[in-house]
């Protein structure tokens, strides 16, 4: 503290010190906001890297050299992989979402029938959305308005700097993708609210509605996080191992690994 708050009584300074000890938000929140920002800003997966070193005593205000030439101030180990992915993104000329889709190119697209059935069955989403206080997620309600605001529950239609067309299968099944996104947004919101049960319920809904969907990779990454949050270590490790095998080069793998690190 710069001046030691000389006009505050000592007991209040102790209270402030206690507030400084409030724990940092859980990793799932950091990952969730990062994922939303990645979609919103079209950063092509760059946000999915891990946390970096906290400010040090020598740098209490987080003073930081942002100049591109200051390579030492960057976080090379965590970012290197994302540079490769960004390069791959540019190579295929696709936006951020397209990168994830490209990585899933071996998976068939969602069946229109399942997407339609979900869209006509808001009951699949409503319980989870209501549980986490997000009624706008229910299809047929204000979901479109919510998406247009660009908040966390947008369907990835925000501004993109990489404006090339997405892969053809994404265009063909855009409605299905939107429905998938809606369900997974509910799961993510539940994770944000530390409601592992609701998150797992939403993930099960997605699995039932989109067994071969385009966002399976994202779903399975959230399943690991939800199981960790639910303190189901055995299931979390098993899900993590399946994820590693199935999506060895996933952009979500760092988040999965960090979640697993929280297991006892």
């Amino acid at each position, binding site marked *: 503290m710069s001046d030691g708050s000389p006009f505050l009584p000592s007991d209040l300074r102790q209270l402030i010190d206690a507030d400084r*000890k409030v724990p940092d938000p859980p990793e799932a929140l950091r990952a969730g906001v990062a994922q939303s920002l990645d979609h919103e800003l079209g950063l092509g997966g760059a946000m999915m890297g891990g946390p970096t070193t906290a400010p040090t005593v020598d740098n209490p205000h987080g003073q930081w050299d942002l100049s591109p030439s200051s390579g030492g*101030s960057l976080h090379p180990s965590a970012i290197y992989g994302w540079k490769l992915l960004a390069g791959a993104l540019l190579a295929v000329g696709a936006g951020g979402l397209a990168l994830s889709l490209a990585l899933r190119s071996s998976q068939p697209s969602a069946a229109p029938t399942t997407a339609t059935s979900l869209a006509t069955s808001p009951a699949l989403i409503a319980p989870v959305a209501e549980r986490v206080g997000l009624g706008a997620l229910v299809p047929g309600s204000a979901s479109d308005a919510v998406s247009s605001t660009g908040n966390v529950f947008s369907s990835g239609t925000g501004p993109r700097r990489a404006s090339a067309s997405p892969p053809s299968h994404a265009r063909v099944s855009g409605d299905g993708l939107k429905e998938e996104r809606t369900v997974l947004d509910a799961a993510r919101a539940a994770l944000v609210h530390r409601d592992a049960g609701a998150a797992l319920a939403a993930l099960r809904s997605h699995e039932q509605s989109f067994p071969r969907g385009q966002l399976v990779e994202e779903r399975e990454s959230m399943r690991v996080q939800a199981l960790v949050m639910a303190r189901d270590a055995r299931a979390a490790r098993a899900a993590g191992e399946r994820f590693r095998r199935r999506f060895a080069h996933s952009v979500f793998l760092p988040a999965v690994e960090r979640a697993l690190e929280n297991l006892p």
Partner: protein
Amino acid sequence: MLVMGKPALPEVAGLPPAREEFAHLYHREFSYVWHSLRRLGVPHRELFDVTQNVFIVLYHRLHLYDPSRPLRPWIFGVAFRVTSDYLRLARHARESARAEIETADGAPAADELLAIHEEQMIVREGLAALDLERRAVVVAHDFDGVPGPEIAEALGIPLKTMYYRLRTGRSQFVAAVRRIQARLRER
């Protein structure tokens, strides 16, 4: 759930930061932004969205940051403005904003109740008694230890105004804490 719009701050046209730079900034400052918003009175259930909006603004304005200046006061200024916009967009009058803070943050989830120390609850309610302008100055100065001139610069206010808000904000904060402590003793 409050449906929030995009950040009301104007998005200044400029060269966006490199993705890696922004990702680095995000992962390094996420917790700082989160705690700043929490202390500024953003309800717990809105922290996710408001934190995201802060980083959207940072992304669009990062080219305006002067690297010779400390980063965090600059980030705090952005967080303050986004919080102010959030409260205005939510049509929260000052009094209702206090009520929002008290009802939202005063009633955390059951598992959180177990983890939150009484001292932290007193601080939160004490800060909620201040208006946003004074709260921001007190948080930046007394919680984050930012020098007065940097706070004034970050918030875009004269230095004299900053010290006035600090003095009166501290006084109100102390009075609020004493009321809360007295209430707790009566239990």
